[in-house]
């Protein structure tokens, strides 16, 4: 009970502080600009009332935007030393990491919510099947959370935001590209790699098929990186 309350307290502070700095505005604006521009370009080219092209962009765009959201979460607290106060309050490390992670997920959620007008635009010019749209949004949030968990881990490793960003970008990219190099691999290995791909599971969900295997993948992926993050801040022998 207290733990939940603490997570909520950390979440609230972190979420509001996104908006106290330019980070949130820059990240969200850039996300909307890129996704809107690329999507409508393809939309007019294809001339189909579908959000498919939009959700096709999301896995690539999130490789950049997720680490940009998470990069400061721990690294900056280390640089400004506020972490020494945070970690001597009666707060568990898991509560700190989860609160911050959920704040990042919420910010990403806000970004996604702001793309709803795209779907409304599409629906106004043709007949839009809303099923895959909701599936797409749900999948995007899950996949985004997976990327954010990676970013959370990266920011837990360093006191330098840029390092956290680049490392996060690199790891996210690996989990994105992993099923696209399958053709070079023997079949057994290929199936394993496919299962590890963040992108592959997203496309399953975005098709509107909610499969338990995809959910299990995302939840275990997120849990793994969250647990690594908690361990990473365990020994806080930084100055």
């Amino acid at each position, binding site marked *: 009970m207290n733990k939940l*309350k603490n997570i909520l307290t950390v979440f609230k502070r972190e979420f509001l*502080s996104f908006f106290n700095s330019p980070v949130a505005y820059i990240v969200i604006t850039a996300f909307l600009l890129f996704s809107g521009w690329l999507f409508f370009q393809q939309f007019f080219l294809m001339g189909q009332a579908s959000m498919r092209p939009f959700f096709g962009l999301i896995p690539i765009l999130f490789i950049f935007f997720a680490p940009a959201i998470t990069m400061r979460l721990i690294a900056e607290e280390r640089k400004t030393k506020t972490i*020494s106060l945070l970690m001597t309050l009666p707060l568990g490390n898991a509560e700190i990491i989860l609160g911050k992670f959920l704040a990042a997920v919420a910010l990403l959620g806000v970004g996604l919510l702001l793309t709803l007008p795209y779907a409304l635009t599409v629906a106004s010019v043709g007949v839009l099947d809303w099923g895959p749209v909701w599936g797409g949004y749900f999948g995007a949030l899950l996949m985004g959370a997976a990327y954010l968990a990676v970013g959370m881990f990266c920011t837990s490793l360093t006191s330098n935001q840029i390092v956290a960003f680049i490392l996060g970008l690199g790891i996210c990219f690996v989990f994105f590209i992993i099923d696209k190099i399958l053709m070079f691999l023997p079949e057994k290995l290929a199936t394993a790699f496919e299962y590890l791909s963040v992108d592959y599971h997203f496309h399953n969900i975005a098709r509107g098929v909610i499969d338990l295997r995809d959910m299990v993948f995302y939840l275990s992926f997120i849990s793994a990186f969250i647990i690594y993050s908690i361990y990473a801040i365990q020994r806080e022998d930084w100055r």
Partner: protein
Amino acid sequence: MIEARNLSKAFGPIEAVKDLSFEIREGEVVGLLGPNGAGKSTTIKMLTGYLTPTTGTVKVAELDTSRDIQSIRRRIGYMPQDIPLYEDMVVLDYLHFISDIRQIPAASRREKIKEVAERCSIEKVITQSIGTLSSGYKQRVGLAQALIHNPDILILDEPTSDLDPNQIVEIRNLIKEIGKEKTVIVSSHILSEVQATCGRVMIISEGKLVADGSPDELLAQERSDNIVHITFQGIGPDEGLEAVSRIDGVAKVKAAAEGRFIVEAKTGQDVRADLFHLAVARQWVILEMRTEQISLEDVFRKLTMN
């Protein structure tokens, strides 16, 4: 209340704290004194469980920091060195955030915040963003943050660095007042700081405890009653040395300028009366006679310089 046993902390090759043991009783106001880099902050960070000791144990209120750190943290108010605060937050929001974590019930929260703001004189800036505050105000916000849950133990790491003299006096008074009912640990590299507020001083040098006691005790330890400065009018060095060294209790005599002599007595002996009788016998005029005065500053310097 606080018990440190054989505490050591190494950062790679740097041994910041070496085999430190001490005990702090409930209600004591203790000054942790030492030059920069002595290991004060490192010691404090181990008390708050922020750093794990390389070896040794810390117990706070009978609880072990390696096991019950959360319960310990609930009883501690801590202000780290350089007051790291969230610069982008408004003071009031920040205090609400701390109150949330400190589990101060919503019903009494407004009152608690108001009380602590008043105590630390930050009411004027309560709606200001922390980043815009002067360092004096930041320090006081840091203090308010440490006091809001009425902790049994207050730990302040260099609370008066970067303050102007008036603010220093204010903070000192506040520490004294809090010290009447709480256990307080204040670190400082400035002696006058702890001398003014603390009933007990622990001097740390290069990670080791080199002295521990009340300011008076430390003075007494290092006092040198057995050194007497005496000045005879118009007496030359040779004449004076010859006569004074003949006194029974004298171990050593040195001649300084213009009839002044520095007399070191054998341990436990007071030679002042003998010097007087000597002067009377020889009909010398004593212009000055005093025992050497040692200040706590001298003790500090002597103990921390190698």
